[in-house]
């Protein structure tokens, strides 16, 4: 049964949706410039990348549209993505907002008998460009997001807050607070995610955001993209309100799109990347394994001391209405001088991987977030997409000399893994509203360290996400 707060929230969402589904509602309410006459499908960069990169991709897509793409010709004129303002011709500022509510139905295996409704995001921000060479973004969460609310990680209310200066096409300099260039899914914006939650590989092992400076650019006719930077800390995914995480992070990522310059090549969108990161974790608690929705800890963190090393590989390919992506990340934390005689202990090792795929039932071309050919109540049903992901997060057995005396027990330190299969359906009502439904099936190797010991460590969590953004 839904409580009154849930019902109230649902009513409001229905009102918001109805508002947005009305004819040209947003365009008429926010003093926006008139919709562009050019009938171009609006592409979204699959990764956060940078504002500059995003704009380049947009231009590229428009060029394709002009060359007679049949999908484009069918697309109707739509309002612009963001309200924007240009105080002077050389400066443009876009206003952005995102509102997300997550509904989780009862999960009896965990003893959760009631439907739970929670905000996931309430974010506002601006991004813009100045004098063609400078781009910037400031965004802020209005309250704790899902991960901060569940203390999965220590999320600052300030999200991306950076300035990016284009020196040449091959060299851009970015400074401020933004995502460390590590991991494909972690650096993908939430509006472009195919699932309600990012993979465990992204949320637990990828660094996330922090303050730093980075050089990035594209080389060899856009076939190679590089990012390299220094960050004062090693990302907010690796710390919580009670744990500090690492410091002094050096991160680099190299992405190759070998067929990017070949027009209409079947593998033209294929991208593969490798990333490495190092940081210092001096006498700090390391990473821990929590289940997808944060219900349980299947591997508790242990103190580590020394260097943290991350290595990641990822690849993605989109063709027509389908897409495939995969990622593999390992993390190793040193434990120097931690034994009885000040001797080194073996490092703590963690690895994670996922393989994911999507298919647009309504036939739209996949490029990050789907853009419906025909919005709901504007001659169509929006865009509908199926998604599936298989993943694993595994912590290797950690040894500790205290185990000989029972702290902690060897069983508590033995390796453990969470295996997850997620099946999803995404419904893009229009450009602004997305509804995602996921069935998340998890099973933990050691049921005693799972949130569902009576069910052998296996449980199913149905979740629904309603997202509004502009």
């Amino acid at each position, binding site marked *: 049964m839904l409580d009154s707060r849930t019902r109230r929230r649902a009513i409001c969402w229905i009102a*918001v949706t109805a508002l947005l589904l009305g004819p040209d509602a947003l365009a008429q309410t926010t003093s926006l410039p008139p919709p562009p006459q050019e009938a171009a499908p609006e592409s979204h960069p699959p990764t956060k990348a940078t504002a500059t990169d995003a704009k380049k991709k947009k231009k590229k897509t428009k060029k394709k549209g002009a060359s007679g793409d049949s999908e484009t010709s069918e697309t109707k004129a739509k309002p612009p993505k963001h309200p924007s303002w240009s105080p002077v011709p050389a400066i443009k500022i876009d206003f952005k907002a995102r509102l997300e509510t997550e509904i989780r139905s009862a999960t009896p295996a965990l003893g959760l008998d009631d439907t739970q409704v929670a905000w996931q995001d309430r974010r506002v921000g601006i991004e813009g460009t100045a004098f063609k060479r400078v781009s910037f973004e400031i965004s802020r969460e209005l309250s704790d997001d899902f991960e901060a609310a569940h203390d999965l990680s220590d999320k600052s209310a300030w999200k991306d807050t950076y300035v990016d200066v284009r020196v040449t096409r091959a060299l851009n300099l970015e400074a401020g607070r933004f995502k460390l260039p590590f991991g494909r899914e972690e650096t993908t914006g939430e509006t472009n995610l195919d699932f309600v939650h990012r993979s465990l590989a992204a949320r637990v092992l990828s660094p996330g955001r922090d303050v730093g400076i980075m050089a990035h650019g594209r080389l060899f006719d856009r076939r190679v993209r590089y990012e390299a930077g220094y960050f004062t800390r090693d990302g907010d995914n690796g710390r919580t309100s009670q744990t500090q995480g690492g410091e002094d992070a050096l991160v680099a990522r190299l992405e190759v799109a070998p067929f990017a310059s070949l027009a209409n090549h079947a593998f033209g969108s294929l991208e593969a990347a490798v990333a490495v990161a190092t940081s210092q974790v001096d006498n700090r608690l390391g990473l821990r394994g929590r289940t997808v929705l944060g219900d349980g800890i299947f591997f508790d963190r242990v103190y580590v001391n020394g260097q943290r090393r991350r290595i990641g590989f990822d690849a993605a390919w989109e063709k027509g209405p389908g897409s495939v992506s995969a990622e593999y990340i390992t993390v190793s934390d040193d434990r120097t001088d931690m034994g009885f005689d000040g001797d080194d202990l073996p490092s703590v090792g963690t690895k994670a991987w996922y393989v994911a795929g999507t298919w647009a039932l309504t036939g739209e071309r996949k490029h990050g977030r789907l853009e419906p050919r025909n919005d709901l109540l504007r001659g169509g049903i929006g865009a509908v997409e199926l998604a599936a992901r298989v993943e694993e997060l595994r912590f290797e057995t950690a040894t500790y000399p205290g185990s000989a005396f029972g702290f*902690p027990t060897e069983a508590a330190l033995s390796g453990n893994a969470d295996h997850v299969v997620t099946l999803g359906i995404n419904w893009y009502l229009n450009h602004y509203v997305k509804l995602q439904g996921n069935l998340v099936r998890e099973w933990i190797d050691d049921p005693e360290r799972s*949130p569902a010991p*009576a069910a052998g460590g296996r449980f199913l969590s149905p979740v629904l996400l309603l997202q509004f953004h502009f």
Partner: protein
Amino acid sequence: MSARRWIGRGPRLLLGVMAVWCASAGIALAQDQDAFFNDAVLQDVRIVMSSRDWQTLKARAAENTYYPADLTWNGVTVRNVGIRSRGGSTRNGIKPGLRVDVNRYLTDQEFLGLKAFSLDNMFSDSTLVREPATMKMFERMQLPAVREAHARLFVNNEYVGAYVILEAIDRTFIERHFGAEEAQVERGGYLFEYEWAAPYFLDYLGSGLEPYAALFKPQTRATDSIVNLYAPLEEMIRTINESADDDFAAAVGKHLDLNLFMKYLAVESFMDESDGIVGAEGMNNFDLYRFRNGLSQFLPKDKDGSLASLDDSITVRLDTNVLVRRAMKVPALREAYLSALRQCIALAGEPAPDDQRGWLEREVERQTTLVTPAIADDPVFPYSIDDFLGTADLLIVFAQRRGAFVDCQVAQMEQGLEEGADPAAACRGVIELASRRSP
């Protein structure tokens, strides 16, 4: 107003609704730990778990295996908690002591703000009163003590016996007594549980850290560097043993608040704890907490061996423990011990406005009265009801006469006794006098 104008106000309306929800989102249920630990009433705690798991837990009571269960108290239900057998010498499968880990499986789950508590079977105490009464004395002496309350325990709707609910000594406890900074997960203080293995009197065990790891089991920061965990402990014990007599208080005072320690010792002595710091089998039944600033403090636990004997001396076994023996030779610390004993005497004898009996006597009587029906119905109570009533009478006598007896001994010590002389020797008659004065 036209529909179009309403639509035009949509975003503002939406923001208004969002603001209201933002304000209401963080409302938490105001539940009360004090009600759970209210020892003025007999609490009913209900556990629902697989019958097979309950039988297995009892059959394998020596193991620390957890089992999932649902917990209900006073209309508050928490599902999917972890329950295991607990206890040292009192651990058994007939009436198992239980530890309830509320967040064992669901990480963020709490019960009235608690992450864990215990249900103590008090198997070695035929009254179930010794420990709660002693903890109350620690509390009245303004020393950190766990909250306790008597309870009837029902498992799968079947009454399984009278228990005592014990607050866990964990981060929640540390935060309540010492503040949030001390309770931090990564940078908080170090909490150790002393594990009795053989008689130990705080002798120096050498510079290697393994012997200390065998005795002091970390309850917080349990995977920290071994040197961080034990080097300060080794240094403290070395200082206790090897510092010069004239520098003892200053040197040890860098590791331990000695005045607090003497107060702790005085409470154990007044309540005649036979299995505490100067227990008959060496040190036992305490936790040691090391603050972020390096100072350590003893925390009492498992006081079911207290109120052992009315006529035990306040100097019994004080010479067995290195720390106690050396501290008692420092005049200021000896005075702190005697002063704390006088404070115990005053508190134990404190009358109520409508009852001239002392607090300790009233407390023991109140608790025994409260727990009597639970014990009478207890299907696995290991003593007869006559044992219970007889022992309860003895505890009342203890409460009536202990103050006068200790008072006499304190006076003897203040007058100056020869080294090794027992102050109780001249005070046995006081017990008889007190007996004649008692109603």
